[in-house]
């Protein structure tokens, strides 16, 4: 047998032919039918609108059936029965995916469009004292509500994160007897309507006369809403850590706690951070439980333990139903600020969880 020397260049290399991808070759008639099948329905749909049909009706009764029919015909021509089934699925999947994308973009866009009119430095720094629905947008703002939201959410987070992660640890790392019960309860908790959580706190602390409307009551009402999210995401991320790693640590003579702290937790770090951020995102826009616990306020209140406190959702709520245009604009502005806060959170999450992977890729 001839020995192959890898250092020696092949004396007669074969140049790559232009069509070295036989799996990508499509006949001209196939291309033509694809082009036809993807443009004709749009044309027919537009035509039916010109003839007086409403957009929604043209979309559903003219465009979609034509697109299905032509897609099926084209699919059948190119690859027979298989192409036919493929075309039906493709048409439906793309159609509904586009519907969802359009809905999502239009929601975000309408908030940005109407909210940006209200947005200004003064709007996000000043408070709402002496401001009413008819006051011009040049005065007042929701700075007090941003502070309120951050404070209320921070207190909830400080309580919920240790509790939620400890629960997740109990569910995944121990062999406790009540694991399945706890898991069921957490699942049940995630179905709890937020207003019920608020009412419970209201009945217990405020209606009973123990306290007035106050920030900490709002934080308390948000805890049962945040807890299931944090627990379940943390549990999932801990379950993703292979059992072999825990065994490896234990076999080295580690206590269960140190094995968790030094091996399992670092391996699940990005998932745990995601759990915290998803938990915060879950409660940052809650309105109902806050209306009946923190109430609304016009002044800036830094104290969670005395007096009612404004939050972004309650600020939005107080202005949205007004007859004045400026008031409605303030509400849209508040919606935009909430969106921005959540966006900042998610970007921060990405940055916090990425470095390790980036470091690895850099090497």
């Amino acid at each position, binding site marked *: 047998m001839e020995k192959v020397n890898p250092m020696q260049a092949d004396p007669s290399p074969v140049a790559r032919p232009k069509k070295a991808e036989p799996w990508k070759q499509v006949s001209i008639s196939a291309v033509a039918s694809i082009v036809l099948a993807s443009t004709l329905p749009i044309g027919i749909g537009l035509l039916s609108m010109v003839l007086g049909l409403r957009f929604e009706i043209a979309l559903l009764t003219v465009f979609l059936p034509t697109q299905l029919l032509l897609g099926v015909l084209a699919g059948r021509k190119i690859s027979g029965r298989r192409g036919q089934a493929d075309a039906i699925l493709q048409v439906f999947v793309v159609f509904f995916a586009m519907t969802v994308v359009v809905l999502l973009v239009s929601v975000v866009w309408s908030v940005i469009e109407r909210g940006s009119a209200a947005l200004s430095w003064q709007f996000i720094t000043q408070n709402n004292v002496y401001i009413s629905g008819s006051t011009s947008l040049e005065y007042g703002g929701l700075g007090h509500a941003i502070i309120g939201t951050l404070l209320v959410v921070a207190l909830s987070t400080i309580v919920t994160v240790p509790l939620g992660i400890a629960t997740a640890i109990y569910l995944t790392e121990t062999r406790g007897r009540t694991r399945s019960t706890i898991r069921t309860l957490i699942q049940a908790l995630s179905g709890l309507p937020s207003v019920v959580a608020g009412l419970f706190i209201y009945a217990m602390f405020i209606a009973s006369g123990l306290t007035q409307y106050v920030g900490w009551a709002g934080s308390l009402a948000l805890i049962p809403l945040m807890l299931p999210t944090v627990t379940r995401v943390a549990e999932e991320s801990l379950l993703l850590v292979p059992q072999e790693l825990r065994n490896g640590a234990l076999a080295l003579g580690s206590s269960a706690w*140190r094995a968790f702290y030094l091996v399992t937790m670092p391996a699940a770090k990005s998932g745990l951070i995601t759990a915290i951020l998803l938990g915060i995102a879950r409660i940052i826009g809650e309105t109902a439980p806050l209306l009946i616990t923190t109430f609304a306020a016009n002044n800036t209140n830094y104290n969670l333990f005395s007096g009612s406190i404004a939050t972004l959702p309650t600020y939005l709520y107080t202005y949205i139903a007004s007859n004045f245009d400026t008031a409605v604009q303030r509400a849209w502005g508040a919606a935009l600020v909430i969106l921005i806060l959540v966006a900042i959170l998610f970007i921060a999450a990405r940055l916090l969880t990425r470095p390790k992977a980036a470091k690895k890729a850099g090497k």
Partner: protein
Amino acid sequence: MTELIAQDVNVWFGQRHVLKDVNLLFPEREVTALIGPSGCGKSTFIRTLNRMHELIDSAGLAGRVLLDGTDIYDAGVDPVEVRLRVGMVFQKPNPFPTMSIKENVLSGLKLANRKNDDPNGLVETSLRRASMWSEVKDRLNDPALSLSGGQQQRLCIARSLAMDPDVLLMDEPCSALDPGSTRRIEETILELKEEMTIVIVTHNMQQAQRVASRTAFFLAEDGNPGQVVEFGDTEQVFNQPVDLRTNDYVNGHFG
């Protein structure tokens, strides 16, 4: 130097009896191989020797495992102490992914909350004993997962050796590795046996003959619990087995 003795070890998972009356003696400074077809309880048995067995939910056990004369299942014995003296290498390499090569070698100290005056020296000695020092000495701070599968497995061996165990248990340490890496690990085993007791589970008969001075053949027949069919010098188990079933197995007639 330490001798390990299993006396009448019986194992259950739930109500299912999976190992019956295992009596084995692992002499010091010797390698003992555990062979047998899949599902005969070898891996289960080896996990009873450092109390990793009890980490499985439905596990049950009867019998004694004597480490230097003390039953490791005695009420007063801390499983963590047992695992410090009886190290274990698993079938699949399991270096800690968040740590560097160096940190992996030192992870045992950290996990067991022990101090060492000369960590760098310990890293070098351990990696040398696992015969991989020359390969990694310039990249000790690289992530452990940047190593090849065979290197990862030797890193796991080095990690165990850093704890200076008296006994080393190896559960099919080469089954996920290529022949080259397998050879290096076998060389390591032969060097290590000068200093410790080694028990190795393997599916590879040649490997058992190359590294082990004594061999135990496990077999579970027709849904019966696994048992030790034959136990003796490797030479004898492979060449003049007493039991017909051993003869069939080592000559490749079944399993």
